[in-house]
């Protein structure tokens, strides 16, 4: 271990040379520089490797296979429906949590965020135990002729379950950041609560809400475990891109790589579109 040997002279000699005082001044910056380099390499090399290992022709030909196209379409459709539902239901819920005080609020917040730390396998089991045919609500769903397992609707439910907390958390923080004077002032002027929510709180919180939407969408596009356990895997019905990737991994590694590159590209495109299309109208403060 080299750290103690390095630290020794710095500690032992209070009146160091110029070089030593420079080291003393800069070591923290160097340490930070090294740590960001490690973090950057660790997080980007796997993504870069996917694209290095896939030839552009291979990527294009994977786009031509019906399995990839069906998986891509299903992924985009189910994640869009899941995210739209999350935004519609989650935005008012987050506004309420951020602007009202009530008993048990901390508990509600914790419960809403809980799925964030659940492993996907636990999410899958939980969904089966609650909404599966033998689950808590299975009988009620069957009576209402709602079937989720093995259905595209089940994929949407799984995606919404794992990605909703990301949006709710972000939206809660966003509305929490809207200054009280804005809301109270508007209310004092006689503006109705729904109008305050729609025309004051949402526009102010919009950049952060969009960031939350992007995070939730990215998570939904990448969901694997909960989808497989709850909705199953069937081409064109429940097999999203991540499930198709795992399917290909066992038989055709280059095809799995090409599909992975496709998923990265699509996810990046979704995130970029949200950023570029919807945020510039908000003037930077």
């Amino acid at each position, binding site marked *: *271990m080299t*750290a*103690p040997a390095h*630290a020794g002279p710095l*500690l032992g000699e209070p009146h160091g040379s110029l070089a030593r005082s420079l080291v003393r001044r800069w070591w923290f910056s160097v340490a930070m520089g090294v740590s960001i380099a490690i973090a950057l390499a660790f997080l980007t090399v796997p993504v870069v490797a996917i694209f290095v290992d896939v030839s552009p022709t291979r990527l294009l030909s994977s786009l031509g296979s019906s399995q990839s196209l069906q998986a891509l379409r299903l992924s985009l459709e189910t994640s869009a429906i899941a995210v739209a539902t999350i935004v519609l239901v989650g935005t008012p819920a987050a506004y309420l949590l951020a602007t009202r005080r009530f008993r048990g609020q901390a508990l509600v917040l914790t419960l809403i965020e809980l799925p964030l730390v659940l492993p996907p396998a636990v999410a899958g089991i939980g969904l*089966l*135990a609650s909404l*599966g*045919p*033998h*689950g808590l609500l*299975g009988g009620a769903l069957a009576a209402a002729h709602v079937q989720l*397992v*093995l259905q595209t609707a089940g994929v949407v439910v799984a995606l919404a379950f794992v990605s909703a907390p990301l949006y709710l958390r972000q939206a809660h923080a966003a509305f929490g950041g809207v200054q009280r004077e804005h809301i109270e002032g508007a209310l004092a002027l006689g503006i109705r609560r729904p109008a305050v929510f729609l025309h004051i709180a949402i526009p102010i919180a919009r950049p952060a809400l969009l960031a939350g939407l992007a995070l939730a969408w990215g998570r939904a596009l990448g969901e694997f475990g909960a989808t*497989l*356990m709850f909705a*199953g*895997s*069937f*081409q064109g*019905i*429940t*097999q999203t891109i991540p499930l198709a990737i*795992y*399917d290909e*991994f*066992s*038989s055709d*590694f280059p095809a799995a790589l090409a599909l992975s590159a496709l998923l990265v590209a699509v996810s990046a495109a979704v995130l970029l579109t949200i950023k570029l299309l919807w945020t510039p109208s908000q003037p930077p403060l």
Partner: protein
Amino acid sequence: MRRPLAPAALGAIVCALALSACGGSKPRLRVSAAASLHQAFTQYAAGFQPADVRFSFAGSDALAAQIEQGAKPDVFASANMTLPARLFVEGLVRRPVQFAANRLVLAVPRDSSIASLAQAERPGVTIAAGTATVPVGSYTATVISRLPAAQRRLLEANVRDREPDVTGIVGKLTEGAVGAGFVYATDALATHGAVRAIQLPAALQPRVGYAVAVVRGSAHLRQARAFVAGLLRGAGRADLRANGFLVAAIPPPASGG
């Protein structure tokens, strides 16, 4: 003097990791095994003296793909003979040897009214099967291909879920998420009645053979060979038999390569 604390803490963590990594004197043997071997192999490993056995259970095709991508477990046990044979040709494992056989069955949840393969062909019955590349899925494809065309179409139309390994199919069955599924006889047995096995006609039954091989480059060659030997004629064979695998008809083992 606060600074020396950090290296000391780091040292403590490194020591703890080192201890947990090689706690005890036994070497650690890593075994990649087909998901259907879970119960039998776990029992076998509990009494396996030469090494501390750690498993990776998954679809045999995924485990083989990992080895082809450079993963180096010590032993690879597959639910078919073709994957180990392919890895042997590729020079990744030593000569594989068959150690057990199994049967494919149609399994249904305990309370199901389905009592025959024909009843699983009725419209509305959902069936889970393995993917095309996992052994349980390719055996299922064999079974279905041996049916008359009309029956084959009905059954194929009912397959609504393709699981990457047999564990997924059993899970869907026990949760009632599917009406039926093609699994191994041993999987149905291992659920202790949660799913019911429906035997397939002999004419449809595929040959389900399990092969095991020592992975080339294994750092624990002696222990890996002992593990394989136990499967062929020792405690492993008894555990396999106790869990419903067929071990009687196996020819005497070839040399371990």
